[in-house]
């Protein structure tokens, strides 16, 4: 189920990740088989493509495995509180709109404890890029069920199978007013890089839901054979690129997540609105 564009694109020159990493802060804390490192690399390649100065980039996170990302990257970095990354990020961006702010968060961080901030950030359409590392588990605390855990799944707090319907972060972002909504996976790494790049370049709140497996907790609890098996089942076979989806019969799409850019519109951005409307009117009064 690979995208033709992916086949054509070859990374000819090895990418120098050290340009953006803090090598003395490595190794990272992520488990073997975790997809977060793949997502981090896609993010760095996407950032490189933007050509932005490192001094102008700010990476902000909440709490959780994915939220350890800022510590490893050589930008202005802020590791905040559980669920609150988007509020801290709103403050940083609004105070200095020249900064390019990327929020790295997990599904529990963004959609459960930080759910209110998530929907209102989207509603304001403030120019932030939000990367949600969706692994359907609370990895940092040992594998409890999360707001994206599929029904019936095992977790340390759903030993009888989860009975809670999961959130779809993309549907939620779109309904809340985000002007760019996309999904990627750690499996489709080149596609993810492109999606993140497009998200960063988009003016307004851009949300990328990134499906990314946790073999240590979700994988073991739900009898996946290996990390690669998980990636194949959940990320490769469990998703369809939105461009291909049009050509497929509905039964082939059942239970699958769409990848790629799902929603992209032009919409007034919060900081610009503040400057052009609020500040102008305030000064005239």
């Amino acid at each position, binding site marked *: 189920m690979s995208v033709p564009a992916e086949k054509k694109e070859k990374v000819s020159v090895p990418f120098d990740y050290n340009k953006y990493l803090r090598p003395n802060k490595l190794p990272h804390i992520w488990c073997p088989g975790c997809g977060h490192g793949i997502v981090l690399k896609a993010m760095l390649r996407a950032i490189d493509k933007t050509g932005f100065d490192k001094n102008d980039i700010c990476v902000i996170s909440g709490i959780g495995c994915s939220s350890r990302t800022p510590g490893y990257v050589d*930008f*202005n970095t802020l590791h905040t509180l559980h669920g*609150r990354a988007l509020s801290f990020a*709103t*403050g940083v961006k*609004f105070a200095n709109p*020249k900064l390019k702010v990327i929020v790295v968060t997990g599904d529990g961080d963004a959609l459960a404890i930080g759910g209110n901030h998530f929907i209102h950030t989207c509603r304001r359409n403030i120019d932030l890029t939000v990367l949600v590392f969706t692994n359907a588990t609370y990895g940092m605390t040992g594998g409890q069920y999360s707001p994206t855990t599929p029904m019936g799944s095992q977790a340390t707090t759903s030993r009888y199978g989860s009975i809670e319907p999961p959130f779809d972060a993309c549907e939620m972002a779109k309904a809340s007013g985000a002007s760019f909504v996309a999904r990627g996976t750690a499996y489709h790494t080149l596609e993810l890089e492109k999606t993140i790049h497009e998200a960063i370049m988009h003016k307004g709140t851009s949300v990328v839901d990134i499906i990314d497996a946790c073999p240590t907790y979700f994988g073991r609890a739900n009898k996946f054979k290996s990390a690669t098996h998980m990636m194949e089942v959940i990320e490769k076979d469990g998703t369809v690129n939105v461009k291909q989806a049009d050509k497929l019969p509905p039964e082939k799409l059942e239970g699958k997540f769409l990848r790629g850019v799902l929603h992209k519109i032009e919409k007034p951005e919060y900081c610009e609105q503040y400057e052009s409307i609020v*500040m102008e009117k305030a000064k005239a009064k």
Partner: protein
Amino acid sequence: MADRKKKFLQGNEACVEGALYAGCMFFAGYPITPSTEVAEGLSVRLPKIGGKFIQMEDEIGGIAAAIGGSLAGLKSMTATSGPGFSLKQECLGYACLAEIPLVIVNVMRGGPSTGYPTGPSQSDIMQAKWGTHGDHPAISVTPSYVQEILSETVRAFNLAERFRTPVVVLYDEILGHMREPITMPVPGDLEIIDRMRPDCKPEDYLPYDDKYEIAPLAPFGAGYRFHVTGLNHKQDGFPTNDSKQIGANNERIMSKIENHKEEIWKNDELMLDDAEVAVFTIGSTARSARFAVLEARKAGIKAGLIRPLTIWPFPDKAVRELAKRVKAIIVPELNLGQMILEVERVSGAACEVVGINRVDGEPITPMQILDVIKKYK
């Protein structure tokens, strides 16, 4: 001061004036009675001067965005009342540990819970010190007059910037909504302190450099790419599991305030020199106490008043000295006994300590205080 403008302002409006005088350029908050006039005022005034005002989706978002604004280099503030102050506590602790300057205004209303939103109280005194988890420094200023709300808000910003820490401005609903004529300060009348900025090369910058007691803080985006976390961290801002470094840093953030208590304390005293009975109180209650003390003097009772404008760190030195020379310290407060615990702790058995408490949403009257003073005739 003849050339200074006079204004007839509400306490919350004076808080707005104080914030702007101090150089506040960022406000994020959430509507809550009885503090809303602070947000409303700043929503009008900040955009006029290029400042930023944002109404967030909740109380937590309000303080979190204000911390973000401060990290981006702007003097930042949020305002709230009891229930909102409870919600902000985790972020308040974050600002303590990450050492981010910030002013939090808490216009105290009746509690617990939703309590009595339009009634005054002084029941967040202990929350201002102990509300967030973990050992942490606390500075709270406690004005009693509308004019003082302005000047103490300025002082709160100065202390926040000077010590790289959150500072709480605590006043009760009575003061928040009371109108009084005040004199507007002009530039130069009140001291303004800005946080120390680094002048080293970016590669040499350590956001928690222990060669300083309070290290310079670079704004995000100025070329100093550093890391900030709520985890226990090293001098470079990155998390650590090294017990030596964790202990040293936790002790440093406390001692940076402890070592400068003399600079942070501010007490207003009335006829204490020969006093045999002293009243210790803050906020609107201190206004009743002042009246009671003056009445007591007319009746020939040697009464005095000590009114701390800094309640945290607690003015232990002044209270300890006072306790040695008076028969009793009376502690009126709009709660069921919070400050009195500190007064008792500090005074030991040196004098009697008597509380006057009220939690019915009404102020403590001068007569209530006078009645107790009279017992020490």
